[in-house]
Every structure is written in structure tokens, then in C-alpha cells.
């Protein structure tokens, strides 16, 4: 039952992600998530604005099922597989976050300072959510993939563009975490 009640260590999660990649490939599809964002645009009629989106979204149906599965997996986990909400983060991280104004760091999956529902109705809160999303979507599509497509699929198949993209992910992530988050919060 520990498998259900306790968080999974890295050496369980990492190999299982590789198995997800194996299963996707076995069934004839690549492992990646961010292409779906373009499919959403196509379904929403973006083909009228740009030829880039003039595609047959039905060819991506399998991937939409994959995304629906990810949502379902999240639902099943949060309802049946996660008795504890605490994240055992490094105490140093927690005290640094406290100084930045993040109360209760690690006592839930997400900081209320960013993800509480009231944030939708404040200018700053909304700007953070939509801005972060914009950078994720724009950046992933410009780079040609996200963590699953570049960091996992691309690195493991020894592709140079993926190595460059992952270097970029870290440049951006380090800039945000070390310099911008202390300015924003």
C-alpha cells in the first residue's frame, strides 16, 4: 500500500516515464505533449488566420486522447492515490521561499500565491498565469517541443537540436528562478 500512500521516488518515476515513451512508440506514435496546443488552435478555427494551422486535426486525434488521459490520470491520482498533499522540499528552499513571501511552502502541491482562484481576478495574478502560459506555448512551439518531446525523446535519440533546446530551457528557467521571481514576488 506504500505504493499508493507514499510519493514515488525518482528511480521509480524516471524509468516509468521511459516506459510511457516505449508504449507510445510501440503503438506507432511519438511521445510529446505540446503539439496539442497547435491542434487546439486548428480546432478553434485558426486556419482562417494562418495557413500554418490549415491541417486536418483528426490526424492528431490520438494525441488528444493522450491529453485526455493525462487529465484523467491527474484526476484519479488526486482522488484515490494521494492521501498526502505535502511536498517534502528542501528546508532551505522553503525558508528562501518564505523570505520571498511564499507562506507554507511545501504544504501543498502548488503555492496559493500563484494558483489560488482569487488570482484570476487580480491584474497581477492573471498576468502571471496567462504570461507564463504564453511563454510555455510560444517557446515550446518555436523550439519544436517541450520537456517530453525535446528533453526525453530528443535527448535519448541523441538529437543536437534537442540538446540546444534543453540548454535553452535551463537558461530560461535559471533566469526566472534566480532573478525574475524575486522581482515579481
Amino acid at each position, binding site marked *: 500500500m506504500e505504493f499508493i500512500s507514499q510519493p514515488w521516488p525518482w528511480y521509480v518515476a*524516471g524509468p516509468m516515464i521511459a516506459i510511457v515513451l516505449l508504449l507510445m512508440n510501440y503503438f506507432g506514435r511519438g511521445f510529446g505533449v505540446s503539439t496539442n496546443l497547435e491542434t487546439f488552435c486548428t480546432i478553434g478555427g485558426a486556419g482562417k488566420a494562418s495557413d500554418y494551422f490549415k491541417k486536418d486535426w483528426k490526424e492528431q486525434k490520438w494525441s488528444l486522447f493522450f491529453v485526455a488521459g493525462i487529465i484523467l490520470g491527474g484526476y484519479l*491520482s488526486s482522488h484515490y492515490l494521494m492521501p498526502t498533499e505535502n*511536498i517534502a522540499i528542501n528546508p532551505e528552499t522553503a525558508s528562501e521561499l518564505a523570505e520571498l513571501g511564499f507562506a507554507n511552502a511545501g504544504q501543498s502541491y502548488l503555492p496559493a500565491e500563484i494558483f489560488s482562484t482569487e488570482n484570476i481576478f487580480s491584474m497581477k495574478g492573471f498576468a502571471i498565469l496567462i504570461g507564463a502560459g504564453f511563454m510555455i506555448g510560444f*517557446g*515550446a512551439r518555436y523550439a519544436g517541443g517541450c520537456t517530453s518531446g525535446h528533453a526525453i525523446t530528443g535527448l535519448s535519440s541523441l538529437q543536437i537540436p534537442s540538446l540546444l533546446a534543453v540548454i535553452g530551457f535551463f537558461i530560461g528557467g535559471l533566469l526566472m528562478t534566480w532573478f525574475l521571481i524575486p522581482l515579481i514576488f
Partner: protein
Amino acid sequence: MKNIRFLVIGSLFGIILSKSEVVSWYRIYEMFKFQSFHMFGIIGSAVLISMVFMQLFEKGKIKNHKGEKITTKEKKKGLTRTLVGGTIFGLGWALAGACPGPMFVLVGHGITTILIVILGATIGAFVYGLLSNKLPN
């Protein structure tokens, strides 16, 4: 419905990302602060084991369900595209504490605000599509 298999694989992926706390903002913050091995262990071991699978695909030792050789799509090349696009992605990843997979997992966790992040990401992909032939590669 052949696509149901992808729903099942997706659910497995969503459960892995939840149970290993990859969907936690704090885990991403900690990773970029180099204060925990957790995320590096997950991504590193996933890449190493996938590398073995990729070799087996390449050598034809593992074939797809139709018995055909498994090939991996080549990523688009370009120094600007990968580094600049990657950096923009990294900025968003660290701020939201979620990349595209975890974004959808959090919908399943019932987090309303993540829908705004997904909306932003979709707008981002749309703007990229509009500019795609004007941006440097």
C-alpha cells in the same frame, strides 16, 4: 476505438507525474535552485533508459505493434529556434512550475487557475503559428 489505448497510456503518465510530484511548482523551483536531486534523477533516468529503448528500436530488436521498425521523427534544426524558443519556454516553465504535461495533470487535480495557463499556452502557440515564417530559425 483504437485511440482508447492512448487514453490509458496518458492516464499512466498523469499518475506518474502526480505521484512523483513533478506537477508540483515547488519541485520545479527546487530543481532550478539545484537544491534537490529529485527532478534531475527523474529526467536523467528517463533519458538514459529511453536511450536504451531508442537503440533497440534502431537495431530493430523492438518493433511496433504492426511488426514495423520504429523510427523517431527528426527535430527541426536551427540554433536560434532551439536556443531562443527554449529560453522562452524555460522562463514560462519556471514561473508556472509546470510544463505542458503537468499543466493537463493539474486540470485533473481540479486546479481552476491552471486553465488560464493553458489558455495562455494556446494563445502562445497561435502567435507562434502566425509568425512562424517570419521568425529566424
